């Protein structure tokens, strides 16, 4: 899909290796596991918690031009839904190609209803989504 998924924590790459080899639920992992032990990259994205030395659960989508297009952060104790991450990624790919359109909340994949913002859509979002 022309994308690189990188998971990042403040653990080192050596701990990533050990975790990958021990945790059964990581058996099929194929993405790069990034190490940010000094918190530099976590700070850049505003997810580093100084007192804890840990990164919050932040997800960031950056296009090939280097522009930040999506960001979502939740606290330590609430996990993310990977389907929602992929939905946002696919939506970003879609609107990068179809620049006049926008993907509403219910958009899941290619072929689902999109919106085309403009004078005709003002006050008519419901009609556009249900017609």
């Amino acid at each position: 899909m022309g994308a690189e998924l990188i998971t990042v924590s403040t653990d080192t790459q050596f701990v990533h290796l050990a975790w990958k080899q021990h945790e059964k639920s990581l058996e099929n992992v194929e993405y790069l596991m990034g190490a940010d032990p000094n918190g530099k990259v976590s700070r850049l994205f505003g997810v580093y918690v100084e007192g804890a030395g840990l990164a919050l659960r932040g997800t960031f989508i950056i296009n090939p031009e280097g522009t930040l297009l999506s960001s979502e952060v939740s606290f330590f104790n609430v996990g993310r839904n990977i389907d929602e991450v992929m939905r946002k990624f696919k939506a970003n790919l879609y609107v990068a190609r179809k620049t006049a359109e926008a993907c509403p909340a219910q958009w899941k994949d290619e072929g689902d209803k999109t919106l085309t913002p403009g004078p005709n859509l003002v006050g008519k979002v419901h009609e556009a989504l249900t017609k």
Partner: protein
Amino acid sequence: MTDSTNGGGLQLGASVPDFELATYDPTKNDFGTVSLDQNKKAGKWTILFFYPADFTFV
């Protein structure tokens, strides 16, 4: 939340400064590095997925 996140982070639509990370690549079972510039040059999107710690849930 004064002890919370540091550095404010980046605004959506902003150009992300280059960064580099040491990596473990499970497909090659090898260490390496990855950088934003490298991905940009390859025409790739970059998805960063931060989490607090290995050996916990993600």
